[in-house]
């Protein structure tokens, strides 16, 4: 099975899955915090509308985890406030 790396930890995925789906399947529900309240956020709309699931992939920030297809070896970071 293919895998990505989320904050140093390997996360498996099936080809064709989004990064958000791979994280959800691994039980990871949130990967950033909000700018003002510091509240955790992950998938909400799941179809690219809400921008709650913003994530950094291979150093590229502000991508929507629900829209980006996972690729072998992707290094994925959340964490930042409104990353």
């Amino acid at each position: 099975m293919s895998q990505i790396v989320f904050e140093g930890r390997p996360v498996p995925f099936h080809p064709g899955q989004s990064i958000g789906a791979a994280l959800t399947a691994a039980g990871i529900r949130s990967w950033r915090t909000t700018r003002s309240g510091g509240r955790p956020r992950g998938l909400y709309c799941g179809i690219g509308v809400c921008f709650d699931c913003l994530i950094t992939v291979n150093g590229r920030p502000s991508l929507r985890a629900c829209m980006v297809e996972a690729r072998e070896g992707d290094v994925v970071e959340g964490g930042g406030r409104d990353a």
Partner: protein
Amino acid sequence: MRDVVVIGAGPAGLAAAVAAATAGLDVALIDAGRRPGGQFYRHHAAETGRLHHDWDAFVRLRDALDRLTYLPGHRVWHVEDGFTVHALAGDRDERPVRIDARAVVVATGAHDRSLPFPGWDLPGVLTAGGAQALLKGDRVPAGKRIVVAGTGPFLLPVATGLARAGATVAGVFEANRPYGFARHVARHPGKAREGAGYAALLARHRIPYRTGHAVVAAHGDDRIEAVTVARLDRDWAPVRERVIACDTVAVGYGFTPQLEIPLQLGCATRMDADGSLIVAVDVTQRTSVPGVYAAGETTGVGGAQLSLVEGELAGLAVAEAAGGVAPDPADVQRLLARRRRLRAFAGAMHAAYPVRPGWMDRLRDDTLVCRCEEVTRGRLAEAAELGATDPRSAKLLSRAGMGWCQGRVCGYATAWLAAGVCGRLPGADDLRGIARRPLAQPLRLGDLATDDQP
């Protein structure tokens, strides 16, 4: 210069693009998704169609895509009059693209309509459509123990799909009591079969289905651990509450059509029976702007079958206007009759599954309304005291709707809350005030300066 660019590759856009291309036009079909099909036909990379309704109709359209230029993974951010479509291609290394065309078909579909409640920003609370997208597109159930809530028949495929995928569905909580709707369903053999199938699946998986109930709060610290479910009175005020443990909630109160592009082009809009803003079209799916057509959910939420019919009508009309092959009048009559029938069904559905004002009783002062800018109901109330009694003023004073999603998620709720200050329901002008987005997608500034022909 293409004859027509179709925006959106869901049922309506696919049908429009294939009809126009079959009639001899040079068609570009542009779509944000990675695979064709939109939300209804969203599918996994290795899809067999086993769990999809009307999959054969999709396969026929997909197999006809070689007649046209299909551009997946393209996010349209602006359409100029005349027409020039500006988009960004690729899901990570974005490349600016522009397409010139003599006509435009808007088939951008809809997204879930959200109503806020305390705790709705906790991880594990998803839209019903979001849970469905994860399941259909990625084969991932959104959680292990899931509560499905909101209003509308869409909750049924979501709940039964999750159960078939192995999740425990702790209950379906339908806010309305749609008793009269069954006779409309009975008149449509296909819909009656579909409904009977859901009923059988609910029974087989022992999923409780409760009408007149809603999720009024979600509880947890860093993720959802339980919800409060309330029985509702006629106006949706909660009358009796209980707590249900769960790790996920899938919630949706109907759908909001995506109108950025028709509004950019100046197309006339109106309010539909479900309280959503829609594009006004004539019998051939023409909008008020010459050369611009719209089909599917953007002209009124009505489901995939209606979208297929409207898309085909739009494609035929574009082809005829461009001097292509004139459609067979018998085909057009058949499509028009089918559209009338399906529109009537959609009207009955909207009447049976309205949004009632009692949803606002769920909000506390510290409940978020705008998730992006973290604007609470209390902040909106302060804005109202300063005179913000329409959603546009409320947005300017409170920042609700000014974040990443540009009000797509909170706009409908903000419209209710702002209008509610004056004791009225939101109208078309309220919804127009929050639906205008000159840039339909977030852009990097450099992309405004450079874009290329594909």
